[in-house]
């Protein structure tokens, strides 16, 4: 194998880790902004989230360059799963941006409810994203599998948040506007969890060659 090819594979690995770092940063601060009603922080995150899109393009280009050199076996899996992973990673960035936009709107108002389940949900999704990237970095099947299992917890929290919000609207129709926003935020978080699972599944595929959907 040519030296250049090897270098590019290494670079792909590094870029994915870097993108993972950006994801972790964006997601953790997104939750902070939401809880602290910090519109300024939310705006900063929206600006910084562009870095994720840049990284996605960069990784896609590199993947295509690598595919032109006909990688085989493990290398091929690594490149193809990287191509799929960046899409999920980029989507997570988008969901965070969505939450930040809502945070900016909600920052001026007093929250209709005390944020109990949403931060907990966020904590689990952050951990999932964190572990999904970790699984990739360490090529660790166990971590990847734990990410996939954690999705059930997120779904359970989503159900709890939904119940709370339904109760709030029933209590007072004036709550409806904010309630919808919070519902959306919960949905965004739930989606982030799903994307983290996708990433973990692609990590499993890149290691074992078997994708979860095939089982």
């Amino acid at each position, binding site marked *: 194998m040519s030296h250049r090819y090897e270098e590019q594979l290494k670079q792909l690995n*590094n870029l994915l*880790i870097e993108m993972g770092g950006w994801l972790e940063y964006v997601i953790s601060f997104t939750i902070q902004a939401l809880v602290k009603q910090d519109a300024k922080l939310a705006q900063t995150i929206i600006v910084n989230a562009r870095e994720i899109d840049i990284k996605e393009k960069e990784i896609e280009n590199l993947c295509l360059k690598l595919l032109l050199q006909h990688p085989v076996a493990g290398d091929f899996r690594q490149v193809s799963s990287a191509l799929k992973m960046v899409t999920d990673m980029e989507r997570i960035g988008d969901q965070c941006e969505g939450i930040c936009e809502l945070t900016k709107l909600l920052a001026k108002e007093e929250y209709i409810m005390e944020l109990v389940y949403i931060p907990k949900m966020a904590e689990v999704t952050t951990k999932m994203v964190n572990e999904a990237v970790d699984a990739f*970095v360490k090529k660790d099947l166990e971590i990847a599998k734990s990410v996939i299992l954690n999705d059930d917890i997120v779904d359970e929290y989503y159900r709890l948040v939904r119940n709370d919000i339904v109760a709030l609207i029933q209590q007072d129709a004036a709550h409806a506007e904010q309630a919808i926003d919070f519902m959306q935020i919960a949905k965004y978080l739930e989606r982030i969890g799903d994307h983290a699972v996708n990433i973990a599944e692609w990590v499993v595929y890149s290691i074992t060659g078997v994708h979860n959907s095939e089982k």
Partner: protein
Amino acid sequence: MKKRIYRSMWSLVLLSVLTVTFTCSFVFYELFSVQTKHAVNSQAILLQKSLKYVSDPLSYLSTLKLSEIEDRVTVIATDGTVLLDNSSNPKLMENHGNRPEFLEAKKNGYGIDTRYSKTLREKTYYYAVKLTDGSILRVSKTINSIYGVFFSVIPIIGLSVLLVILFSNLIASRLTKRIVEPINAMQFGFYDELSPFAKTIENQRKLIEEQLSNLESKANTIKTITEGMKEGLLLIDQEGNVLSANQSAITYLNSKFASFEGRNILELSRDIHFVGGVKTALTGENAEITAIYQNKTVQVFFNPVLQVGAIVLFLDITEKANAEKIRREFSANVSHELKTPLTTINGYAEIIESGMAKVEDVQLFIGKIKSESTRMIHLVEDIIHLSEFDENNIVKSFQSFELLDLTKEVSERLITLAQEKSVSITVEGEPFEIHANQRMIDELLYNLIDNGIKYNKVNGNVTISLSKMDDGVKIVVSDTGITILSG
């Protein structure tokens, strides 16, 4: 090496074969031609001598059937006309009057000449003698010239060279093997010629070993130093791969990898600020971040190292950060504490200034201003004391004094206050000589006893007992008043 031995062997063989061929050819050819000449000469002389006794030499020679002998016999008349020849018809032969051997024989009685044929491959040797009747008898023999000899032996030489090369090839391969084998096996003792070489190698080996162990011990020293460091240290190359990491760095980054060396820094920490710092350092500029690792506030420095990569240094600044926090809180508190009495003073002063205060109240207000300013003075004094602590110059003012005496002296000073509150003071214990800042111990005792009196019940008691401990003195101030709740 093998090739060179082969080549030199071949050239040697070729050279010797050629040299031997040439020299032998020359020597033998010389011998051979001299013998031929002698034979021709003697034949001619023999014929001349015998012809002396013959009346008609020509007809006698004809009867001899000279055509049967190999040598050519010619009789030439004095005018050069060929009278007889045993190998061709004399009538068809040209006049021989200008031949050198003929001219010479006519003059001296005998003549010699050697002439090459047109192709140079043959030469003919002529020997002429004068007969009694004046005609010349010439005997000649054609032999191969030296060139001719060569031409004729070339195929033989070629063949023998080929054979020799084949043979020498065989020998060369064996010889080469035998020469090279001990060298390959590094058995330099096998050749005396190689012993200086072997010695040099041995010396070099020793030198290298020495230098290696030197380097190793240096590396070990550095490793021991870095390993023992509380600060984390990471050395990375241009590509961001970890060259070395000490234990502290590994602890700070808390990566579960068994070994850091050779891994990309991204695998250890993908925190965007950290990655940003690394990238800055790798482009040749310094960077610095503050981060939280393992519940510690850590300052991380990224410094470029020319031609290597970068050094990452982790510095635990938790204490400093905490101290900074306390200082900030303290100054905020102090400002607040100072502002409260000042606001009061300012308020009363304003009332007095505006003339709104009644005359009898002015006295009261001034009293308030005085008490507030006294509070402020106390506050400022406290701050001064605190700054003394900060400056660490308390140790300088240490002195030896009697603790029991000091305790008694302090309680004496407070006896009036105690009497006012109907509280009794008891001092117990033995005398102790201690080394400390007397003024501050004084203050400490004063405050404790003072509080014991102030927050006591009527007819209560304050007891100060001194008792010796292993490593110093225990001062217990107990009172019968309300207890101070912990926390």
